[in-house]
């Protein structure tokens, strides 16, 4: 499957949008604008963009507490997402969910749950609905390496495979669950190998390589759409941000990781750098074009900041809205 120049430049633009957004958040957190906390996805941009680009417009997606990148890659309005991270009335949940509850129902981005591993089975349920309603939709369910040790992972993948639901499970392995490295989390660090236990294909891929992610997800999505059932894709990345989450810390350090590890990954394994370099080598863009794309993303972000900062706080009484759907007009 060959991606066209036009597609690739759009994908690079998406990656840069995510990078600027995520890279800027710690600063806004320190300034008190990010409410509560936030989980940034620096280093995981190629997974979000590669995967989302491989989907149909109406395919379902479920994300995690680390969802900004997925939402942006799905095409969500950056203004609305940032406003939600700032918990403003104009955010996608009107400030009730915050960073861990990003969604865009108009784009079939069915949202995110703040409990690690809490959405793995729900993603399969979306696939089940598509299968039972015969809509031809596929569901894609993101989670992390930490979530792969939840019971929900086992129960969901087993049931998804038994029922052959059209669901693609994408584990973004950033190599740390909270501060614990993979080797101290997984008895077998090859998470993809677990797919064999559920009688489904499982593959480990380079999650820094946009092309690999796209091709792998595309193939799994097509397989699911043909009715052949779910797949597990484990995309290996690295947590480029210093912390698991944005938090008030006297020392925003990387002490839980070996000295120099983060620096080395930034230097040699940054997916933005890798994609940028490759696109220039392929002759799809030059330095000038790259800078134009980056400037456009920066401009969009600056406008989003302006929008979010100037958005009103939600009215207190809205706290009571949206708990129940009105029963009138039900079926």
């Amino acid at each position, binding site marked *: 499957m060959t991606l066209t120049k036009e597609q690739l430049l759009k994908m690079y633009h998406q990656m840069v949008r995510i990078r600027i957004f995520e890279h800027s958040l710690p600063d806004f957190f320190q300034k008190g604008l990010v409410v509560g906390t936030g989980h940034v996805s620096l280093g995981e941009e190629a997974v979000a963009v590669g995967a989302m680009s491989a989907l149909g417009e109406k395919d379902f997606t479920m994300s995690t507490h680390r969802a900004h990148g997925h939402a942006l890659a799905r095409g969500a309005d950056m203004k609305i997402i940032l406003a939600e991270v700032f918990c403003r009335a104009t955010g996608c949940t009107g400030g009730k*969910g915050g960073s861990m509850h990003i969604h865009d129902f108009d784009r079939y981005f069915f949202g995110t749950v703040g409990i690690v591993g809490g959405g793995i089975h729900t993603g*399969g349920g979306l696939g089940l*609905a598509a299968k039972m309603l015969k809509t031809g939709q596929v569901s894609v369910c993101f989670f992390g390496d930490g979530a792969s040790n939840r019971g929900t992972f086992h129960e969901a993948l087993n*049931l998804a495979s038994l029922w052959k639901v059209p669901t693609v499970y994408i584990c973004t392995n950033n190599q740390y669950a909270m501060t614990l490295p993979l080797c101290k989390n997984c008895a077998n660090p090859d998470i993809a190998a677990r797919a064999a236990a559920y009688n489904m294909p499982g593959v480990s891929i380079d999650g820094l390589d946009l092309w690999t992610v796209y091709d792998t997800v595309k193939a799994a999505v097509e397989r699911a759409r043909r009715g052949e059932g779910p797949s597990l894709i484990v995309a290996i990345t690295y947590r480029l941000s210093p912390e698991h989450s944005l938090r008030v810390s006297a020392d925003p350090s990387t002490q839980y990781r070996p000295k120099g590890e983060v620096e080395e990954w930034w230097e040699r394994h940054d997916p933005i750098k890798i994609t940028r370099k490759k696109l220039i080598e392929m002759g799809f863009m030059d330095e000038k074009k790259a800078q134009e794309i980056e400037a456009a993303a920066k401009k969009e972000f600056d406008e989003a900041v302006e929008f979010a900062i100037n958005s009103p706080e939600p009215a207190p009484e809205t706290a009571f809205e949206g708990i129940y759907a*009105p029963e009138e007009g039900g079926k």
Partner: protein
Amino acid sequence: MAVRQITLREAIAEAIKEEMRRDPTVFIMGEDIGKFGGSFGTTRGLYQEFGEERVRDTPISETAIIGFALGAAMGGMRPIAEIMRCDWTTICMDEIVNQVAKMRYMSGGRPEIHMVIKTNCEGGIGLGPQHSQSFEAWYCHVPGLKVVMPSNPYDGKGLLKAAIRGRNPVIYLDSVTLLSLSGPVPDEDYTVPIGKAEVKKEGKDVTFVGWGAVLVKALNAAKTLANEGIDMEVIDLRTLRPMDTDTIINSVKKTHRLVVGHEANLTCGLGAEVAARVQEQAFDYLDAPIKRVAAPDCLIPANRKLEKYVLPQEETVIAAVKSIL
């Protein structure tokens, strides 16, 4: 209107069957609910009529049952997710409390989580500490859920139909000892509105409000008490969340005395919530302290004599009533 005598077990199966015929998006999933017809027999005949596509036997995976049902609801289906015993909803409490109950709110009021979580509760048949509990108070503590608990076949069918047709997640609790009790159920389609209690028997001396197996015992107690000249009003709460407080308050204003009863454990049981609401809204009408009838703070033992000793009986209700007259 033609009326038949059928059991609660049959009424539940009928409700599901009729709703599945009416709406192709309704389906049921759970352990042993297929060919076997459900561990408590409440899904008998469904598999034979609708097949395995809409009557889905699941592995013993409670978290996946609720998680898949939630996703299916978001994707446009109307799932009935059965957890065989209420004791095991503890296994999927994250799904129920953090996902199902909150999905609409934390998604800015967008999705409708039209799903029913159906489970069997209470004790009385010697199943012991892990198969005899009743956690209605746990679910009632969570905004975003609705909770119903019928005590007879008519309500059992009508409340289940209302739950399936509704636009919100409903926890539907059937009491294990009530499944075989028969009662009148009309042939015609009907629903019982969620959120409305029913005065089962009018009385002037004391109000009993309860649900589940204790409610049936209280109706018998009312007859015994009547022979002694005590006129007890009996209210079946039926829907536990949202609670029909008005019906309780109106009754207390008339009788001035209240006993609230349930089979779940006393401490932090839903009876405490009923008592709190009544003292807040009708304190001046009370002529005696509010009395609670419940399982004492003890586990539910398997030995039948021990179990009977722990679970509230007709005599427990009578003693409670007499203690405040």
